[in-house]
């Protein structure tokens, strides 16, 4: 094959590829996967592994949830969304494919914080997960361990009823709670 033939083929291929990509790219922004995050009440600050992303309702790109690189010290926040709002419990949610497809609608637990008269934590406090929140709701002075366990299960049921966690999640966390010795 002469060099000129190779060059022509190269040019034609590059042009075809470019046209194809540009045509598809016109709709690219519309089709890239994004995560819609809503909260009840709205206006919660959204924290991702990369830091503050804005306030609910908010739409973020999938790569903001799953960045290609991140500091090791933030590894525990990979794939999570953290919501925090004054007067509400900070909530951390693990993002699944379902979430990306359907969007996240999370209900913040503001009653507990209000009842305790304590403001929502301002520090990242991102280790608090839904499951952990259910497992370790704030202790009430004088509350017996058995009563606390009962309350944990109630919170878990509420999270399920509100659709904030899936049934398998609920079952798994419930099993863990029941398996944990007093």
């Amino acid at each position, binding site marked *: *094959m002469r060099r000129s033939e190779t060059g022509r083929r190269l040019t034609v291929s590059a042009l075809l590829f470019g046209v194809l990509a540009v045509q598809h790219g016109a709709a690219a922004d519309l089709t890239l996967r994004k995560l819609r995050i809503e909260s009840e009440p709205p206006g919660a600050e959204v924290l991702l592994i990369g830091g503050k992303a804005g306030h609910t309702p908010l739409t973020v790109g999938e790569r903001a949830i799953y*960045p*290609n690189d991140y500091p090791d010290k933030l590894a525990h926040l*990979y794939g999570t969304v953290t919501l925090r709002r004054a007067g509400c419990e900070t909530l951390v949610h693990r*993002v699944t*494919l379902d979430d990306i497809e359907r969007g996240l609608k999370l209900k913040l637990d503001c009653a507990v914080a209000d009842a305790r008269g304590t403001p929502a934590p301002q520090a990242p406090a991102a280790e608090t*997960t839904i499951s952990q929140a259910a497992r370790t709701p704030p202790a009430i002075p004088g509350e017996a361990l058995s009563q606390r366990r009962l309350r944990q299960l109630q919170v878990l049921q509420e999270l399920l009823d509100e659709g904030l966690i*899936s049934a398998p999640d609920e079952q*798994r966390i419930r099993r863990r709670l029941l398996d944990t010795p007093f």
Partner: protein
Amino acid sequence: MHLTHHARMRFIVQIAVLWAASLQTAWAMPEFARRYSLSCAACHSAFPRLNKFGEQFVANNMRLPNWKDGTVKTGDDLLALPAYPPLAVRAQAYVQARDGKSIDPVTGATDSATTDFQSPYLIKLLSSAPLSDNITYYFYAILAEKGANGEALVEDAWFRHGDIFGSGISMQLGQFQLSDLMFPRETRLPFQDFMAYRMAGITYDRGVLFDRDIGPFEFGLGLSNGNGITDNLNINSPGYRRPDKMFDNDNSKTVFGRIGTEIGPVSLGLFGASGKQRSIALGNAGLDSGTRNTNKHVVGLDLSGDFGGKTYWYAQYLWNRWDGFLDANPGRDYRWQGGFAGVDYLPDERWAFSLLYNYADAGDLANTDTIYEGIDMNSLSLTASYYFMRNVKAIAEVNVDFLKKTPQTGTYWTGHLTKENYVLFGFDAAF
């Protein structure tokens, strides 16, 4: 894939956080995406290139802690069957125009075709799943590799135990690439291969690999048959119709290993392999194996890093010494060297651009009138990948050969007789 002990510990913390993620049905191994209900983006910066989390997932024996949630609930603690066949498919189809001919090294008879529909180029069936708390399997078979219909080829196929006798040492037994200790070929973005690995014969082999992180260092040490995955001997000495085969053709094993660490933003490793290979008989352009087992040594240095998860760079150097390799001069040791270097730039989620430079110098094998004169390469591949979906991409690649054609000399048609420029366009998908 190179992880320090600390990095691995961090990963354990990280995946513990992901524990609570619900489970349904992610990767160039989309099966993992399905199993853990994670987006492909969780493990890939641009399919099939792994991001940081993806590399950590692989180092963690290809599992997340909640792997049992995806198994059949039999009530038997000694049984963890995947809830559905854990299969994935990868398919590639290309159109190619290239310099290069099929030249018979002995007769010089030549065939050529400057353009080709290589569709399909490759269809892979992949499978992997955790089978117990420590054991994971992985295999893939290629159907119609490079369009060869009617053939199926098993390449990776191994079991891996993540913690032998509670020692913290992992053991992988099966068929794998020695070069996977450095840069896995399957996760590269360009179509063009890491040619030095192929030329050095450190790709697929059967063996065992032990690895463990100690402090800031990662250690891997293994043994392999040292003769690839096709040679074998039939066991017929006990008598008629004995079905077994031997896959090695001598009593020697190849010892290989790598020590790696991270220095600042740079990962680096030192690789070594030492074993035996059959000599090459005199004449016939070096196409025939001889009868002697000869020593073979490989030393490699690998370096890699990234900038913010958008730009990845890597470099590999290999030094080889093949002692008494050619029967034509069995007292001579043949040294040659090669390597490659590349950059992948991912400006956004739709595009990836790659540069891959391949280099090899036949060294002492030059002017031997054998096909091993062909260990000679100086080319640059430029690749653009456009992602229609996370798992479906179009590829355009141009390979520019900087070597000059060499005229035929000696008895045989060997050496760089034609250029190897090519331009390629096609699709690559995994699902």
